[in-house]
C-alpha cells in the first residue's frame, strides 16, 4: 500500500509527481472539476454551516478510501459538536481508515500529520485562524507528500478576499426554495455553477456502500 512509505519522502526530500484525481462519482461535479480533485493540491470551499453541505465532500473521501485505500483525516474546529459515526458510515465512509480530531490550531497541534504522507486526504473543517502563511505551508506539504488538503470555510468565499496558495476555490450553498445544492467555481477551473439534488448524493452513497 502506498501509504506505508511514511516519512520516506521527507528523508529523500523529493517531490514526486502525483497524477491521481479524487472523484466524487457525481458526473456534473467531476466534470466541473475537470476530472476531480487533483492530488497534491490545496482546495478551498465556501460552505455555510448547517446546510448539509459537508455531505458533498463525503463521496470524494469514500472513493479515495475505496479506490486507493487512502487514510482520511477530518479536522473540525467547531466547538460543541460531535461526530455521528453511523451517519458517516451510511454515507460510505470507512471508519477504520478515517480519523477525526477537534483542533482550532492544527498547524501547531497536529504538525507531524502534515509532514507525512500517511493521511492522503485531509479536511480542515471550519478551522479558525488559518492564516496566509499557514496556507502556504499547507500547499507546500500537499505538493511534497501528495496530500489532498481541503479547507472548508464556514462562509462563502469572495474574490476580494483571495487566496493565492489554493489552486481551486469554490462556493457551495443550499437553495432552500428549489432544495438543491449550488456549487460555483471561483478559481482554478472554468467559472460555472451547477446544481445537485441531495437525493443524488444519497443515491450515490447507497451505490458506494
Amino acid at each position, binding site marked *: *500500500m502506498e*501509504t*506505508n512509505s*511514511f516519512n520516506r519522502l521527507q528523508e529523500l526530500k523529493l517531490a514526486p509527481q502525483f497524477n491521481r484525481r479524487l472523484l466524487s462519482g457525481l458526473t456534473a461535479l467531476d466534470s466541473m472539476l475537470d476530472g476531480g480533485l487533483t492530488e497534491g493540491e490545496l482546495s478551498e470551499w465556501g460552505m*455555510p*454551516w*448547517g*446546510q*448539509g*453541505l*459537508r*455531505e458533498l465532500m*463525503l463521496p470524494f473521501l469514500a472513493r479515495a478510501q475505496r479506490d486507493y485505500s487512502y*487514510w482520511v*483525516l477530518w479536522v473540525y474546529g467547531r466547538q*460543541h*459538536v*460531535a*461526530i*455521528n*459515526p*453511523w*451517519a*458517516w*458510515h*451510511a*454515507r460510505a465512509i470507512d*471508519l*477504520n*481508515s478515517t*480519523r*477525526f*480530531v*477537534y*483542533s482550532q490550531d492544527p498547524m*501547531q*497541534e*497536529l*504538525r*507531524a*500529520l502534515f509532514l*507525512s504522507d*500517511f493521511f492522503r486526504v485531509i479536511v480542515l*473543517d471550519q478551522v479558525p485562524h488559518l492564516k496566509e502563511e499557514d496556507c502556504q505551508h499547507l500547499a507546500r506539504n500537499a505538493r511534497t507528500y501528495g496530500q489532498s488538503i481541503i479547507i472548508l470555510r464556514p462562509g462563502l468565499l469572495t474574490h476580494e478576499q483571495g487566496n493565492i496558495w489554493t489552486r481551486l476555490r469554490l462556493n457551495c450553498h*443550499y437553495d*432552500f426554495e428549489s432544495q438543491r445544492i449550488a456549487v460555483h467555481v471561483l478559481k482554478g477551473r472554468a467559472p460555472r455553477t451547477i446544481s445537485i439534488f441531495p437525493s443524488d448524493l*444519497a443515491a450515490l*452513497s*447507497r451505490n458506494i*456502500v
Partner: protein
Amino acid sequence: MAAVLSLSPSSPRDQNDEILAFIAIFCSNEKQADVLQNLSPKTMLWVDSDNLRLIDMRACSDFWRHSARQRGMDVSLYVQQQISEIFAGEDYYGAAAFTPWEALLLAKAAREKGFRGLIHFSSRLGKNLLRGLSWDLWWESCGEYALRKKIPDSLLNKAKSAMSIAMRRLGCQRPEQLRTLPSPHIRRRFGSLVAEVWQLSFPERQGLERKDAISFFPWEAYTTSQSPCVKRHLDHELREWNSIEELLREDLNRLCVLGSFKKEERILILEWRIVLCNLQVYPIVILFRHPHSLHQDCPSQRTALLQINYAFEKNFSLKASSLETGLISWQIEIMEKAPARLRQGSLFHESSDDLQCLKQLENMIKKPLEFFTLSDDWLAEDSFHKEASSLSVEASEESTTNYLPLAAGRPLFLYPDAQNFLCDQLTRVGHFQERTMDKWWKSGNRSRDYYRMTQNETMLWVYRDQQGSWYTQGIYG
C-alpha cells in the same frame, strides 16, 4: 480447564476486556517472574514470602485483544497459553478477575484446594472456590492488606478476635455466608480495616463499583531494576527551547546506550526533572500514547522531543517567563516502560504496516486522534464508541448493517447533549424523519419523533418526546 476459561463466542467485547483486568499468580522463580512482566508493564509483588504477583492487564488489553483476534483465538485462552509458555509446562496457581483483590483471594483459594492453572472468576470453579473461602485465608489476606496499608497489628488482632467470636456465635463458617452484611455495620462493630477488606471482598454485594474497587486497592508498582536515567548540569542557564532541544536530544541518545535500557524496550512515561536558577525543581511528566522506541528514533529523537516540547510549553514556559529564570540542570528518567518480550520477539511488532505508522504519528502530535466504532443501538447518542487507541482498528467490522437505512437520514454531526428547541416565526418544519423508541427505563420517555427543521437557514435534527417537548440533537453540517 480450557472449558472453565473459555468464553462464549457471543460475549460482548467489553466483557472480554474486563475479564482480563487482573491476574494473580504464584511464582517463586525470579526469572519467570521477570518474564511475567511481558504480559503487562504494570505488575505488583503482593507478598514477598508468598511470591504472589498481581498483573494489571488493562495496560495492554488492546494489544492482547488484537493479537488474539489475529490468531482467531479467544483472548482468555490466548493469555492462558502465554502464561503456560512462561511456566514451560510447569504447574502454577493463578486466577483472573475483575479486581485485584478478587484475583488475589481466588488464587489463594485455588492453591489451598490444589486447583492448578489459571482460574477465572466468572467460571463455575472460580465461583465455588470463592464461596468456599475459609476464614483463615480471609484473615491472612486481611493481615497482608493491613501490612500494605501500614496499619498496626494490634488493630487487626483486636478486630479479628472480636469478629471471630461473633462469627462463632452466629455459626458462620465462611465469609461468603455473610456477604450481604453491609460494610457500615462491619465498620461499626469491627473497625474500618475489616470494613474495607469486606467491601473489596464482595464489591457487588456491597454496592462498590468495579472502578472504585480497583482504585481502593493498595497498588504498588513492582520494578525489577533501577529506572534508566541521565543527568545534565549546564555551564550557562538556558531559556530558549531551541538551545534546550539540542541538549535534550543528546541526552535521549545517551539513554539509549545505557545498560539498564534494552533496545527492545518501549517507553510509556518519561520524567524530565528540571532545576531552575533559584534551585526550584519542576518535574515534567511526558506521557506517550503508544509505547515508544527511543532506539528506533535515534539520533533525531523527533517524537520524544515533540512530546517534551508540548509538555514544556504546557507546564513550564509560563512559569519560566514569570519568574525570569532559566534552567541550570535536569535529569531525564524513564518512569515506565514496556519490557522486551523474550518469547515472541517484540511486543509491539515493528512491521511497516499502517497501524505502526499511525501509532508513531499519534505519539508526535499534541491532540489525540478520534476513532469511532459502531455499536448496534438505535439511539444516535448510544450508537458508537469513541476509541482512543489505534489498536482497536478492526472493531467496527463486527457491527451489522441493520441501522444503515436509518443512519442515512441522520445528520453528520450531533450535539453532545440534546438542547431545548424553541420554535419561532422563522422556523420551518421539515419532513418527518423517523419514530424511535426511547430508553424508557432510563429517561422515562417512551418514544421520539424526529423531524428535519430549518431555522435561520440552519438544518437541525430535532425530536419531540411524548410530553410534546422539542429537543435539538444534531445538525446537518
